[in-house]
């Protein structure tokens, strides 16, 4: 399940829905939630705006889901990414993988968020005290 949306999401409700959908087939659910930090490169972040490429972004996320399902035995997948203006501490992204066994779920969740960061067309613009700036390089993974 893939969603790109301006509104916030409820991680608990998403995981509960996923649990219900799986009807006992999943023994493990691993999720990742990304938040807006209040500090980047030494500057206080007042606001962050997420831009995307409507159409291509959804396609890219669909490829990530499909690839994860091919590589690991998954019963369900969630990828939610927000767009538009966000404030520090806001939720940006949510990824979850459900699988019969935990290792598959861990690997799939990590793959999906790592690949999202390199392959999905989203761009962050930060508002700081000294002005607005585009985040120019992907954050270091790890």
């Amino acid at each position: 399940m893939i969603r790109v949306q301006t509104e916030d999401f409820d991680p608990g409700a998403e995981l509960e829905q996923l649990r219900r959908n799986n009807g006992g087939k999943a023994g493990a659910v691993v999720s990742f939630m990304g938040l807006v930090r209040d500090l980047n490169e030494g500057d206080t972040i007042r606001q962050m705006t997420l831009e995307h490429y409507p159409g291509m972004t959804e396609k890219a996320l669909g490829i990530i889901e499909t690839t994860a399902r091919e590589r690991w035995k998954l019963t369900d997948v969630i990828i939610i990414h927000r767009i538009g203006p966000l404030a520090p501490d806001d939720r940006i992204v949510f990824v979850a993988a459900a699988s019969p066994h935990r290792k598959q779920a861990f690997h799939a969740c990590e793959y999906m968020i790592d690949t999202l960061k390199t392959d999905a067309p989203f761009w962050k613009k930060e508002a700081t005290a000294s002005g607005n700036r585009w985040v120019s390089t992907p954050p270091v993974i790890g």
Partner: protein
Amino acid sequence: MVQLRFFASLRETLGVGDEQVVLPDDITDISALTGWLQERNDIWHTALGDSRVHVAVNQVLVKPDCAVNDGDEVAWFPPVTGG
């Protein structure tokens, strides 16, 4: 007509997000199309000359030798920073 699209910092630098152009007969691939747009002025020359810029044709990432045809949607954008 070819639909041109520019995103994020590139859109702001060029001052345009969407544009339709008639493809000259001698422009048949992305490399040539990018070069043709770079001739507009120094801003376009520098912005589209950045080796980190990605190009997508019909919403799929491509290399500069990818063919471009009438009716295509071609997008240029900087490295992605989502997640």
